[in-house]
């Protein structure tokens, strides 16, 4: 007799059977301490060598509202979100009905059966596993905080038994996590075993979903995009960070604080080789970044859509006065406050053309934490080389979720490229200095750092029009020369931003898809699904703006190109049409914008529907 049989002896559909390919979703209450238990569970799966992609789905709230942790387990390597849940760990009575509804037919429900639930609250096509978690926890612990925290570990123990996991791997993780605090380790091990042993003794273990050790994780690491971006900025030589807290970007600046404390304290003087200021608002944070960039320090801010709106005027100044700045925009669903804890790629246009007047800005689109690191470092070089703001456009999905990605790499022979800086020696040697003089015919002028030389190289930086020698002028010809040079500089940037990555279909095709950022894993899986249905797509992942020439070649080589994005207005498509003058009819929209991460199924169904 087992718990499944007790309630629904016969599910009306066969119970799901899967090894290393399923979705487990935890429904929790925000602030209940479930996050660390769920993360522990995910890491244990990775230690078994099985790839897993977790996603936090959480409200704009500190305590009390529903939160979910969804884990896509996929030995095949599919990392995009997938619809439907195969095993629901329903720990939140508030969301019971929708949680039950999301279970796939034949799927599993795991719940706390301490209080009996009426039969009407279940479905007859799922397998129900009830464990009296509260009763077990309360019998073992007396303090309420202990009860709350250990209940989470107990259910991890139950799941380990149900899914045939290596409980020793979890114990090892706990030992790592609480290294040096033996009492805590023992207490967690005890809670884990409480759940594990209960399940073995009382439930039919394992169920139809199970883990099997694999070698598919390899040397990959598990990291959040925000933390990776902060590391990239650090490796890129950023010394100044000015920021204002805003979800989902705050953890980027906080990670920079943490990594600076680890890597950037002068060992002799114990003083910091960095300056980080939490500003009073986004206007101030970008102002500080620009001030620091003007003075030759590498500086960045991290923000999200509302911050980008507030920074507009300053971004125009940095563009026009040609001051390096790096802006990490961890996008969330807008407009206005929108859905602050939900995902979108909706700031593409507001960043590309930020500020009044004629402006264009360089954008980088990382697909995962490893690219967040690479682009974070590259952005620092690009800002100095191009003397302009550089936007790194992440989104919540890659910024705030831990993602399995290739290890971070750094070439020790790499030198930070500070761009065109005229030194005191250059000036003494008689080199002509005109702050806005295009001496190399690439649109990029030389600059001097303030304080370089007593009599040479000083100039006045301003947002008003000026001539090649930084002298104020309202002369139309001088203004136009300057504006045209800025366009030339933007052309120069085309060869500097990360090149797009093309993946051709197995068979020749006239259909293509363009995508970017966090859409990548779902797009790759969708292409597999579509190929299985005889629809073959060549793929191009755009990684930077201005667009490289290869993007134009790709569109020209296809009759129809699907532009897949996570916003309502097809913003990248608009940018492609506006900048490259493509025929809009050639570019079909595939748009996902309900705030959840885009899925392969959505992309495949939409494209199949458009093809008809």
């Amino acid at each position, binding site marked *: 007799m087992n718990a499944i049989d007790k309630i629904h002896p016969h599910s009306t559909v066969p119970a799901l059977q899967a090894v290393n390919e399923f979705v487990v979703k935890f429904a929790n209450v925000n602030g209940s301490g479930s996050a660390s238990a769920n993360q522990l569970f995910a890491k244990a799966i990775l230690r078994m060598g099985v790839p897993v992609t977790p996603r936090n789905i959480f409200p704009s709230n500190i305590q009390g509202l529903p939160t979910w942790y969804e884990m896509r387990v996929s030995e095949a390597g599919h990392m995009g979100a997938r619809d439907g849940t195969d095993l629901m760990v329903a720990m939140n009575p508030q969301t019971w009905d929708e949680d039950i509804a999301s279970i796939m037919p034949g799927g599993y429900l795991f719940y706390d059966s301490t209080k009996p639930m009426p039969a009407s609250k279940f479905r007859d096509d799922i397998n129900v596993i009830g464990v009296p978690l509260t009763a077990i926890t309360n019998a073992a612990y007396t303090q309420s905080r202990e009860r709350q925290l250990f209940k989470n570990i107990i259910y991890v123990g139950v799941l380990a038994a149900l899914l045939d996991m290596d409980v020793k791997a979890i114990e090892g993780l706990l030992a790592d996590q609480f290294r040096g605090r033996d009492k805590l380790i023992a207490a967690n091990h005890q809670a884990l075993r409480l759940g594990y042993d209960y399940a073995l003794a009382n439930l039919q273990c394992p169920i139809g979903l199970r883990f099997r050790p694999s070698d598919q994780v390899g*040397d990959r690491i598990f990291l959040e995009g925000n933390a990776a971006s902060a590391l990239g900025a650090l490796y890129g030589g950023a*010394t100044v960070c000015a920021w204002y807290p805003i979800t989902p970007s705050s953890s980027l600046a906080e990670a920079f604080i943490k990594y600076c404390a680890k890597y950037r304290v002068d060992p002799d003087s114990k003083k910091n080789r960095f300056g980080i200021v939490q500003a009073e608002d986004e206007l101030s944070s970008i102002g500080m970044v620009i001030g620091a960039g003007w003075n*030759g320090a590498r500086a960045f801010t991290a923000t999200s859509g509302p911050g980008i709106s507030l920074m507009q005027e300053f971004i125009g100044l940095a563009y026009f006065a040609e001051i390096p700045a790096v802006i990490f925009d961890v996008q969330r669903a807008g407009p206005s406050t929108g859905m602050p804890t939900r995902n979108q790629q909706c700031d593409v246009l507001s960043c590309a053309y930020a500020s009044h007047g004629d402006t264009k800005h360089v954008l980088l689109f990382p697909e995962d934490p490893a690219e967040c690191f690479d682009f974070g470092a590259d952005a620092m070089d690009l800002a100095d080389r191009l003397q302009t703001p550089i936007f790194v456009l992440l989104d919540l999905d890659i910024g705030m979720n831990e993602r399995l990605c290739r290890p*971070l790499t750094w*070439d020790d022979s790499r030198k930070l490229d500070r761009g065109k800086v005229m030194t005191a020696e250059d000036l003494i040697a008689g080199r002509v200095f005109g702050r806005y003089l295009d001496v190399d015919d690439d649109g990029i002028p030389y600059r001097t750092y303030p304080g370089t030389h007593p009599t040479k190289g000083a100039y006045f930086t301003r947002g008003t029009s000026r001539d090649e020698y930084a002298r104020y002028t309202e002369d139309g010809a001088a203004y136009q020369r300057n504006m045209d040079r800025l366009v030339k500089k933007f052309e120069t940037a085309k060869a500097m931003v990360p090149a797009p990555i093309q993946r051709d279909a197995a068979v020749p095709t006239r259909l293509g898809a363009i995508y970017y950022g966090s859409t990548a894993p779902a797009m790759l899986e969708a292409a597999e699904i579509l190929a299985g249905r005889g629809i073959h797509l060549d793929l191009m992942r755009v990684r930077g703006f201005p667009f490289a020439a290869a993007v134009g070649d790709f569109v020209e080589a296809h009759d129809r190109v699907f532009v897949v994005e996570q916003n309502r207005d097809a913003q990248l498509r608009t940018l492609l049409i506006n900048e490259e003058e493509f025929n809009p009819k050639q570019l079909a929209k595939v748009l996902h914008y309900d705030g959840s991460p885009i899925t392969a199924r959505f992309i495949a169904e939409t494209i199949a529907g458009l093809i008809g």
Partner: protein
Amino acid sequence: MTYLSKPKMHHPDLKANALGFTRRDYEGPVSTLCAGCGHDSISAAIIRACYQLNLQPHRIAKMSGIGCSSKTPSYFLGASHGFNSVHGRMPSVLTGANIANRDLIYLGVSGDGDSASIGLGQFAHSIRRGVNMTYIVENNGVYGLTKGQFSATADKGAKNRRGVPNMDEPIDMVSMALQLGATYVGRSFSGDKDQLVPLIEGALMHKGAAFIDCISPCVAFNNHEGSTKSFDYVREHNEAVNRMDVITGRAPITADYAPGEMELVRQHDGTYLKLKKIATDYDPTDRVAVMNYLQEHKARGEIVTGLLYVDSDADDLHGYLNSIDAPFNTLSDADLVPGAAALAKLNASLR
């Protein structure tokens, strides 16, 4: 406009300072402000202060926002880097520049529209962060470039040129600066060079957030009967609490005042502020007493001027940030990049 450069001719008798610079070396192109504008007097005072302090012009960074006052950095210290930023946002740009390179002297020049209206937030936060700077507000109570609208420092009841009174309470930036923790606070009048020059000198040598509110009448829009920021009104209501000399280096300190009338304040860098007391009961080192004094005298309609407050042991933002002494733009790759080995170790911890 600033394309009008001044003739490079120097008067042969122009006296050079200890660095060999004459006053002309601290000047900039010709001002484009109205003839008689108070702001030009402040520019002249800045030039004189830098000359007298033997500062190297290129080691000063002059920052401003937008407005008449913010244009003035074009007209002084032509050999310094300058940054005319966006309206009301000079403080953040200055703060960032200062974090990046603590070796330069930061001079922020702003106006009452720039700092008390659109930029009140940035003014407040730069002061409370203790940014090492000299922050001068050239305060005329009106917007000049847009033809005479009241600013947030206009006194309640003060009349514009058409006789319409301002009905909003004024923002007193000196009181705010004191409340927000400025460690050097002065108020002066553009028409009183003898008071203003040493106040600027003391501020430039001060470590920490130094704020000077300098009333600077707008001859075009706010110098009429009924204005409380006119030359006549300010002269009539000016109540100086002290007179000051700044003594640098090894210059002898002469006691030319009777005992009890003089106070010496030693600043962080070794300069002395020699204060001649005018209000004998006034103690510029007692923040709370100063705030009380200012409120009482303001209620009597007096404009209290002089060195109002100084904390000679002040620290600054770099102290709070514990940042290294070297300008960040001089750090080498080795100072900045932890390298591949550290990254490999980090990767290992993320598995």
